[in-house]
């Protein structure tokens, strides 16, 4: 296996003094790997990926992203965030800015890209997620699916090596889930490293190299999708799969 782009080494995290949310996490992600993380709510899967770009800080163990170890060092956090894009369940678009301004904000202010160039690149990304005609609108004028595609385009504008998805389709109407998943599948085919917290098992089967099942802050089971779905090893995994695939 090539050098890991993300590596968790016995990572532990607590909320407050008593809630042990991540327990001895060991995980190595290879460049270009596409990982789906699933598990019941409260199992720590969102916290896991939020540690990768330091939206949450871990208290024990080592976490290395693209060669940089995450710590209190602000410069290290800055370096990591440059390489890691993130898409949230609630989109988190900036409602006071137009779609185009949402996309050019970070390139112009963080990357110091001239406005014209930033806008051209933003239009490329908007075309990629098939929403270029909405560039002048405000986020709240768009449907949920459109907003989430804008959020994906916004993250891509910084040309990250790694994309994190935190339940990207959970806040969407059923009719809109597909348009977002289609964009994510295309993205996966482009070879970017992806970690996706989702319960869209069809997506997992279609694009994941590896599926990780978490419960109570631990990685219970991980496997390639075919084996994971057809031949789960752990009782807890079987129980979970029977609940989400059972209907």
């Amino acid at each position, binding site marked *: 296996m090539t050098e890991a782009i993300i590596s968790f080494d016995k990572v532990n995290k607590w909320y407050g003094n008593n809630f042990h949310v991540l327990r001895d996490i060991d995980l190595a992600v290879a460049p270009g790997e596409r990982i789906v993380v699933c598990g019941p709510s409260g199992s720590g899967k969102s916290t896991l990926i939020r540690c990768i770009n330091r939206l949450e800080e871990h208290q024990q163990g080592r976490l290395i992203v693209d060669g940089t170890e995450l710590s209190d060092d602000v410069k290290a956090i800055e370096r990591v965030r440059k390489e890691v894009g993130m898409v949230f369940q609630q989109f*988190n678009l900036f409602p006071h800015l137009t779609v185009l301004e949402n996309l050019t904000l970070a390139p112009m202010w963080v990357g110091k890209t001239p406005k014209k160039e930033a806008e051209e690149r933003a239009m490329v990304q908007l075309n990629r997620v098939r929403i270029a005609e909405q560039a002048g609108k405000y986020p709240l004028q768009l449907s949920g699916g459109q907003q989430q595609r804008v959020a994906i385009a916004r993250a891509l504008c910084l040309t990250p090596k790694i994309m994190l998805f935190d339940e990207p389709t959970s806040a969407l109407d059923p009719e809109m889930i597909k348009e977002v998943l289609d964009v994510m599948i295309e993205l996966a085919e482009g070879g970017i490293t992806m970690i996706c917290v989702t319960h869209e098992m069809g997506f997992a089967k279609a694009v994941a190299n590896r599926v990780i099942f978490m419960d109570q802050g631990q990685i219970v089971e991980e496997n390639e999708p075919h084996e994971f779905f057809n031949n789960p090893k752990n009782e807890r995994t079987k129980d979970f799969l029977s609940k989400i695939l059972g209907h």
Partner: protein
Amino acid sequence: MTSNFQPIAARPAPVRIEGVGPWVRTNLFGNWASSLTTLALLGLVAWWLPGFLRWAFVDAVFVPKAALCQAARETGGACWGVVAEKYRLIIFGRYPYAQQWRPAVATVAMVALLVVSCIRVFWRPWLALLWAAVLAFFFALMLGGFAGLEAVTTDRWGGLPLTVMVATLSIVLAFPLAVLVALGRRSHMPAIKTICVIYVELIRGVPLISVLFMASFMFPLFMPPGMSIDVLIRVLVGITLFSAAYMAEIVRGGLQAIPKGQQEAADTLGLSYWQAQRKVVLPQALALVVPGIMNNFIAIFKDTSLITIVSLYELTGSMGLALDSDSDWRPFKLTAYLFITAIYFIFCFSMSRYSLWIESQLSRSKNR
């Protein structure tokens, strides 16, 4: 069995609901209770209006003749003559009479600057330079002492120029301070947070009058001998610190209404703390609290009338000064009060309308 979707063509509303007639019918005479209220209020106006018109216009005296005003008092008419007689003293206070063109020009420049600052097309970097230039012009013209202009110390300043200048500077200085304090109260750094909390709680715990007294009388006691700061500046600092504490809490309310996800999205995109505040959090937070902030601006404008107690005779103070010392005109203070009330109202009402315009501008992104 299958059926095809049959669209129904749009039809106009059966009863007209737009226009003056329908508006009156639905809003003023919608049911018997509202009809009754409308009639009662109309009756009240009809009963009160003729008397008011007679007092304000028919029996009123408009010429500056004290004897005529005395006579009008018997018949129940207003004495607008007091304004005609004293308006220069009321508006310019104790500023030397022959030099009063200077505060007039300075105030017009200041008000013009405020109007220009309110218009979107002028929101350009050079506006800051214009502010510096107009403020310098204002103080130079008011102080004089050069190019043949008689020097006038700040204790002779008064009336509307003082009100407008103190209100403008307090607002312009208090607002950024308030934003910084509001951000500071939410800071993760304990020292900064504590300082901001202490500042806000300390200032909110005392009345403005005592802040002004401290600025005016107590502060000089702590200064090294031989050093003195103009009382006008001390009072300006006092009002600014006072208003900023209140405004900081309003701004903090706005900051708390912004979802955590906005900050997280900004962090994820690599924006620094100040970039995130300036580009993402503050524009949204301030948009939410425009009514509260404008409330505060208006309060500051009127609170300037309190600086009279430390012998800075702004509009209200100079009106008192103009009438109290003149026994011929003192009885007509009420009419003079109405005059300065009108001046205050024009300024405050303009601010209030401007705030509505700002709100409509900011709501664009929320309109679907």
